[in-house]
């Protein structure tokens, strides 16, 4: 789960990482009130889960409540890389001397956290990596050791942090790593990490991603999920604990097992169709679960046909067939469903479906045949 800047900063502050004082605002009036409360110069920042806010006009430094209101007026509703601004973060402006960059990412290839540090902060780190690779210090931290003083020294030495700054920067690196571990983060990025005129440090931006699997032990970050911003199908799937990803085609896809569903998406495309989604119903075969899944797929109005692809292992195909038929009792289906049942008790399952003779169901034996049929039905329905 990605966090907004202000949410990440809330977790930063909890960990003792210095951030500027600020307030969230959803309206122009709230923005004005925030600027009044904070006093002096403030920064009005679009809160969207994407980069490039500055270039897109999503960040404005203003000198008082009136200007803050005007800036909020301009930024609320602003589209930044397809993300509509619906909330703002109003924070005290600070006097920046230099901008660094620090991050920790979960490097799955190395199976270790990867820390990065550069004195070329404020810009896109990919650009630093590409144009000035020698200026970007990278360091893997062995989780069996955790982040130690020598890791900080090594990183700061490689990044060229002056010796007299190392105590302060090193302490902040330890805090950033601490947040990464304490919050079960997959990413913590501070860009820029600023050195103020008075020499103190401050996290001027925050980018964090939390491991969804660990949210059970983080009540505070769980509560940060922005339900309103989520795609309605994705939100419904999330609530039903189903893995769903929206694509932009018209063939709805359901199946059991992530790999098989990904593969089904591929074969639909290979058959000339355009997949509308990825949906893994998992191992169960209950009518209720199948009904929920079908409902989510069909709530996407673009869907013209549905491909239901099951390879029965532990799950028996006859049970799936019964579940599907039960689901059809309670669910109005507005598009044809192609069902492919293979594996355990597939013959029995197909017989059940054929005997039921539901007009919305077409039964196929193989994955490739099923994909071809679903693609043809979607094309016919256009």
């Amino acid at each position, binding site marked *: 789960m990605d966090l907004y800047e202000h949410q990440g900063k809330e977790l930063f502050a909890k960990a003792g990482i210095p951030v500027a004082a600020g307030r969230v605002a959803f309206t122009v009036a709230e923005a004005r009130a925030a600027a009044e409360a904070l006093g002096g110069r403030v920064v009005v920042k679009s809160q969207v889960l994407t980069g490039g806010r500055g270039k897109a006009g999503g960040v404005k430094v203003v000198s008082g409540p009136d200007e803050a209101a005007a800036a909020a007026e301009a930024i609320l509703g602003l589209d930044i890389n397809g993300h509509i601004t619906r909330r703002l973060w109003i924070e005290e402006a600070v006097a920046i001397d230099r901008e660094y960059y620090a991050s920790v990412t979960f490097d799955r290839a190395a199976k270790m956290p990867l820390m990065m540090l550069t004195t070329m902060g404020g810009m896109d780190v990919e650009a630093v990596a590409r144009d000035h690779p020698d200026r970007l210090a990278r360091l893997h931290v062995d989780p069996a050791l955790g982040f130690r003083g020598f890791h900080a020294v090594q990183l700061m030495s490689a990044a060229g942090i002056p010796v007299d700054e190392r105590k302060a920067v090193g302490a902040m690196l330890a805090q950033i790593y601490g947040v990464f571990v304490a919050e079960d983060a997959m990413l913590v990025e501070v860009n820029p990490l600023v050195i103020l005129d008075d020499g103190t440090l401050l996290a001027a931006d925050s980018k964090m991603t939390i491991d969804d699997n660990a949210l059970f032990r983080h009540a505070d970050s769980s509560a940060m999920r922005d339900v309103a911003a989520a795609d309605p199908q994705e939100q419904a799937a999330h609530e039903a604990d189903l*893995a769903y990803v929206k694509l932009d085609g018209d063939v709805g896809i359901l199946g059991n097992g*992530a790999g098989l569903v990904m593969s089904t998406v591929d074969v639909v495309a290979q058959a000339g169709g355009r997949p509308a989604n990825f949906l893994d119903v998992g191992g169960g075969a209950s009518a209720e679960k199948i009904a929920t899944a079908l409902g989510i797929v069909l709530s996407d109005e673009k869907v013209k046909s549905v491909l239901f692809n099951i390879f029965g*292992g532990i799950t028996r195909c006859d049970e799936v067939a019964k579940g599907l038929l039960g689901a059809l009792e309670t669910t109005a289906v507005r598009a044809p469903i192609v069902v492919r049942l293979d594996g355990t008790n597939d013959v029995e399952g197909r017989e059940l479906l054929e005997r039921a003779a539901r007009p919305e169901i077409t039964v196929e034996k193989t994955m490739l045949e099923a994909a071809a049929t679903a693609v043809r039905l979607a094309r016919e329905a256009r």
Partner: protein
Amino acid sequence: MAVIATKDTRLVVQGITGREGTFHALRNRDYGTNVVAGVTPGRAGQNVEGIPVFDSVADAVAKAGANTSLVIVPPRFAAEAILEAADAGIEQIICITEGIPAHDMLEVYHYVRPRGIRLLGPNCPGALSPGIANIGIIPAQVFKPGPIGLVSRSGTLTYQIGGELAAKGLGNSTIIGIGGDPVIGTSFIDALDLFQADDDTEFIVMVGEIGGSDEEAAAAVIAERITKPVVAYIAGFEAPVGKTMGHAGAIISGTAGTAAAKKEALEARGVPVGTNPTEAARIVAELVAGR
């Protein structure tokens, strides 16, 4: 001799008194796996249809001679269950549990790996050596014995390919489900090395998917030291960037982890890659027939 699931396996099922634990422990035993013990704290002295239950894995090792563990416990307890097995001297740990926090698995990985303990999974279907032993939730009836070592990040996709191979009369030495999580104990490379050393394996099929770079790393190792023929299949050519496709590990980050890049890396090392399970099975059948 097969790998992981063998005649020498003496299995303890952690979480045996849970619904899933009981079901799969009995299913594995019915298949012929030597299930010697179960563990549920506080339930020592009970038994699950004759399988003795202990309070701890240490007791299962000391009193029932367990050498392999199957972990079927809820995600918030799974990492500690794996560590318990490792601490108790278990040599191979197969973890089925899905949804274990990634940081928990980092700790587990860096504990078991330096100590030479094999961990398979988590979020994996286990290992099946047809006709010998089944550890985990792989539906054995889909597979038959044969010369093909099959390693996969995906469960049902493995069954799909196993089914297609079986339909062509081809069977497997061992099927290894390595799991779909970002941090897994046994990588493609580990599985390739196991199959390379296994007398019962003549061909290797590798089923990958988007996310990470394990397939690319495996391609390099295949070129370097795997002499047995390898065929691959990769899922997720149509997956969008930045979206988790069901498995926690199946996500394309930036330009890294695409199916196309994996296919290219494998083909560059001479590994044929099918673009769907049927095509992959056909390539394998041709290869076997050509021998």
